[in-house]
């Protein structure tokens, strides 16, 4: 097939469409093989036209053709030999190559034939062979045509003068172009109108002649060679030419003749060509060398395309060779335009350069990173660095915030969650930091896939809602149909994106979420959808695609519930659990605390009670005794000076301990406390006072005084009843700090030496000084309040006894009265009058001494 079909693809229909199209478009495009095909087709048509008139001819021609095939084959072999001969001679290697290429290429290659010193006969035979290699039925007429044409060619070339050749030469390119064009045109018109066939036939012939002329008008051919060439083919071709229909009977012989004639000619041809090669080789070289550049240049101007083709095949090898020999110079030659050529190539085919470089890019980058990591970092930083930095900053900020809140309810909740889920807290924090973000919410009608309402918070990256909704609906339908019926698509995960679905009767919600969402968010989606269904179920069912209606707006408002920041949503959700947690926490703390504090208060109560009881006891109150309850025991701690006091404490405490069902443990320690001398002294004083008071009340005839030094009490005083002395000692020794008791006591009543004298015959004292003596009496009386006083009146022996007695009585009464006046109770005083002189005064002494009152103390027990 032709080259286009290979490009265009597999579908035969489109092939025909495209080929007809491209034939018009691509006239200038070089597609040699196609042209040949086209011309063959053309031949076919022509053949059909001529068939009727030349039916006989065709039969003959077929036979001739068969013979010619043989002939050509033979010629081929000769040619092969010749070729070998050419190859052996180093000067003309290109010519043989070109010969081969001519054989394969349908279009006669001018650039190659130009410089060839080869025989035109060969060329023509060549040409014939190519024509003959086409299908049998067509080629019979083709041969005829060719031969005819050749005849024309022959004549034209023989007749040709210099000018004609030149003219032909100049018109070569346009004609070629034209012929190609017409070929395609013919092909196009071929189908439509039969009339155009004739025209095309003519055209074709004309073109063909032209092409033959072109071959013959090889400008560089040596004159002699061309002459020779022309002669030789003339003979051969004439003999062929003579083959005509009316020589039917003699056809075989003639063909044999022809073969023979050619056979005989062959050695000559070979010889000639060899001679030509050998003989004119140097000559040609000589002629060519000075003008070779001009030749090439000239040729290039004439037909760039052909020239390029001619050189093209050599270029890669030439460059390869040059690169091997002088890589540097090639490098220098190419270097300046390398960038430009790449740019150009990118312009021509965008994908080619990336494709070529693509596979090596990875390696190149890797290599560069190994060599210069810093440079790569610098190069990539602006792109990746900022992105990562921004992202990380956000993450770090979020983590910071969460670390700050570590002790907040949320923090505690997270800790518990971490324990329950068995993941690290850090992981949870990270998960929260990389929180999801709702990118879009679509409410889509189930069946039609039409968007009823949508919400896209991020304006910058809006999703194409209609397409997305349609596609999601299609995917859901597909999944429902193909995978499992009666089940719904829940979620599509797409890299970092999730599309979550929640379906209800006539619509579904598709929520595009960036990041990992959680179960709670799905619950929210469900709630929102339930809400929507509840409120607008009917409207949605009947939704016909109306835009910007109230329904759209109010639905969008509901959707906005999903848009709210998820952290807020979380916190608004959390308290329930949190309250429970706090409640439990409080309970676990408060209940034991309550119990403990109750127990404590009970304990304190008992302790206080004990302390009060201990304090209430006068002997124990002095000492600091601490009651303490420990477990089931009531401990008494403290120090007392005596075992007695310790026992006393036990006695006091026991009833309380029994009541509280506690075991009493008396840990009171008995110690000798160094006593404060002052305290002891005071105690002694108090005891003395009590004793004295006691004595007064009980009429004990004692009056005491005590002094304290060095733990010894010295008791001084009047103490008449000595039997009570032992008791006293016991009393004093009971006082702490008293070790010894010394008695310095008097058991005799004190005496009052005071005497009050009176003048003779008088009832009162003569002077106040005399009366003042009574003060001493008073002092004694006050000192011993429990003692009584006898007032004894004495008189002189002057006068009568009765008068003296009466006088004495009066005097004593006066004193008595005086003492009472001074505060002495009367019961303590006793008045006695006598005519006897005082006991220590004798009769002979002065009467003055006899007239006096004396005093005498007496106790309770004494009279």
């Amino acid at each position, binding site marked *: 097939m032709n080259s286009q079909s290979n490009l265009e693809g597999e579908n035969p229909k489109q092939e025909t469409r495209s080929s007809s199209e491209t034939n018009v478009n691509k006239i200038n495009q070089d597609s040699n093989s196609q042209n040949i095909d086209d011309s063959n087709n053309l031949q076919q048509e022509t053949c059909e036209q001529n068939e009727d008139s030349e039916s006989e001819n065709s039969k003959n021609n077929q036979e001739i053709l068969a013979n010619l095939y043989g002939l050509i084959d033979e010629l081929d072999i000769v040619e092969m030999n010749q070729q070998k001969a050419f190859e052996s001679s180093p000067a003309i290697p290109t010519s043989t190559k070109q010969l081969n290429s001519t054989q394969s290429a349908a279009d006669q290659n001018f650039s190659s034939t130009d410089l060839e010193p080869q025989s035109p006969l060969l060329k023509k035979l060549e040409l014939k062979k190519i024509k003959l290699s086409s299908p049998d039925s067509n080629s019979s007429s083709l041969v005829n045509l060719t031969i005819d044409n050749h005849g024309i060619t022959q004549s034209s070339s023989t007749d040709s003068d210099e000018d004609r050749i030149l003219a032909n030469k100049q018109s070569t390119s346009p004609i070629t172009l034209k012929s190609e064009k017409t070929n395609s045109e013919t092909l196009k018109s071929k189908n439509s109108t039969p009339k155009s066939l004739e025209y095309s036939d003519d055209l074709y012939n004309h073109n063909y002649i032209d092409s033959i002329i072109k071959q013959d008008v090889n400008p560089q051919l040596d004159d002699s060679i061309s002459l020779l060439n022309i002669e030789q083919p003339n003979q051969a071709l004439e003999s062929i030419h003579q083959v005509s229909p009316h020589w039917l009977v003699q056809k075989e012989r003639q063909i044999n003749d022809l073969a023979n004639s050619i056979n005989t000619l062959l050695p000559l041809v070979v010889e000639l060509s060899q001679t030509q090669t050998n003989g004119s080789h140097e000559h040609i070289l000589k002629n060519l060398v000075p003008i070779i550049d001009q030749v090439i240049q000239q040729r290039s101007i004439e037909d760039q395309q052909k020239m390029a083709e001619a050189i093209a095949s050599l270029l890669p090898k030439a460059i390869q060779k040059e690169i091997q020999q002088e890589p540097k110079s090639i490098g220098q030659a190419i270097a300046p335009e390398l960038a430009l050529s790449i740019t150009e190539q990118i312009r021509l085919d965008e994908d080619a350069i990336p494709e070529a470089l693509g596979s090596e890019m990875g390696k190149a980058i890797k290599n560069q990173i190994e060599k210069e990591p810093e440079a790569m970092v610098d190069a990539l930083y602006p792109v990746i660095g900022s992105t990562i930095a921004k992202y990380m900053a956000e993450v770090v900020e979020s983590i910071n915030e969460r670390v700050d809140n570590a002790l907040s309810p949320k923090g505690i909740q997270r800790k518990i969650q971490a324990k329950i889920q068995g993941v690290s807290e850090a992981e949870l924090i990270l998960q929260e930091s990389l929180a999801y973000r709702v990118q879009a919410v679509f409410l889509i009608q*189930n069946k039609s896939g039409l968007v009823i309402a949508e919400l896209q918070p991020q304006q910058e990256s809006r999703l194409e809602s209609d397409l997305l909704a349609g596609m999601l609906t299609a995917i859901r339908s597909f999944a429902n149909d193909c995978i499992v019926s009666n089940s719904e698509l829940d979620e599509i995960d797409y890299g970092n994106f999730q599309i979550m679905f929640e379906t209800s009767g006539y619509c579904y919600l598709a929520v595009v979420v960036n990041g990992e969402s959680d179960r709670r968010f799905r619950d929210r989606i469900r709630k929102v959808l339930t809400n929507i269904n509840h409120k607008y179920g009917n409207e949605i069912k009947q939704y016909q*695609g109306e*835009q*910007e209606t109230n329904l759209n707006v109010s639905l969008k408002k509901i959707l906005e519930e999903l848009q709210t920041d998820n952290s807020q949503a979380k916190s608004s959700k959390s308290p329930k659990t949190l309250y429970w947690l706090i409640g439990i926490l409080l309970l676990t703390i408060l209940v034991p605390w309550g119990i403990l504090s109750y127990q404590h208060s009970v304990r304190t109560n008992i302790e206080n009670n004990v302390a009060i009881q201990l304090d209430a006891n006068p002997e124990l109150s002095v000492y600091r005794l601490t009651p303490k309850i420990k477990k089931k025991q009531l401990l008494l701690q403290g120090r007392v000076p005596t075992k007695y006091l310790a026992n006393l404490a036990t006695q006091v405490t026991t009833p309380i301990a029994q009541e509280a069902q506690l075991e009493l443990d008396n840990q009171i320690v008995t110690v000798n406390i160094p006593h404060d001398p002052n305290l002891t002294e005071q105690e002694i004083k108090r005891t003395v006072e009590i004793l004295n008071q006691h004595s007064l009340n009980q009429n004990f005839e004692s009056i005491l005084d005590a002094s304290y030094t060095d733990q010894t009490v010295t008791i001084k005083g009047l103490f008449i009843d000595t039997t009570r002395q032992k008791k006293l000692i016991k009393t004093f020794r009971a006082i702490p700090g008293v070790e010894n008791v010394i008695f310095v006591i008097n058991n005799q009543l004190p005496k009052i030496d005071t005497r009050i004298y009176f003048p003779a015959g008088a009832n009162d004292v003569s002077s106040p000084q005399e009366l003042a003596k009574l003060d001493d009496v008073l002092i004694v009386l006050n000192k011993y309040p429990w003692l009584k006083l006898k007032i004894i009146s004495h008189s002189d022996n002057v006068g009568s006894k009765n008068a003296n007695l009466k006088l004495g009585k009066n005097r004593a009464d006066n004193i008595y009265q005086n003492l009472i006046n001074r505060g002495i109770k009367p019961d303590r005083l006793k008045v006695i009058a006598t005519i006897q002189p005082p006991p220590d005064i004798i009769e002979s002494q002065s009467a003055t001494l006899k007239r006096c009152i004396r005093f005498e103390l007496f106790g309770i027990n004494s009279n």
Partner: protein
Amino acid sequence: MSSLLQKICLIGNFNVGKTSLIRRFVENKFSDTYLTTIGVKISRKPVTIKELDKEVTFVIWDIEGKTKEQAISTTYLEGAAGAIIVGDLTRVETLKDINQHIQSFLKVNPQSYVVVALNKSDLIVQNKLNKLTESFNFQNHEQVLADYVTSAKTGEFVDIMFHQLAIKLVSKG
């Protein structure tokens, strides 16, 4: 200007040119390369109807080509307001299947409308075209609005066809 969102489907045998028609309509482009649509391809195109001061946005479901024997998944058709049933003028069997496609579409969407597109008119000569259009009649159903001889390649009747469907859908509401 009130606007409407409508789902329409393109249905027809494989390689009749559904995708090409959509491409011509939406992007105003054509490519000879044949790519089979797998499943569904969805396109979107707003159409303004100046006469009625209305706008319809078509969500066009390009459903993968099937033959009469392989039924199109009805779930793809559900909720469509209209459909364009496409046949290939160069393949008679695709034209024969059109009625079947119309039936199956209207079965799913009894309230919707259908337009028939006889595509690839650029590949067929006028005589043959006339014969074909005479031999096939798709107007037997009142919901079939029209049939058009279209060419996605040249764009012939493509816009007009979509426009007619749009007008019908707008005036219906």
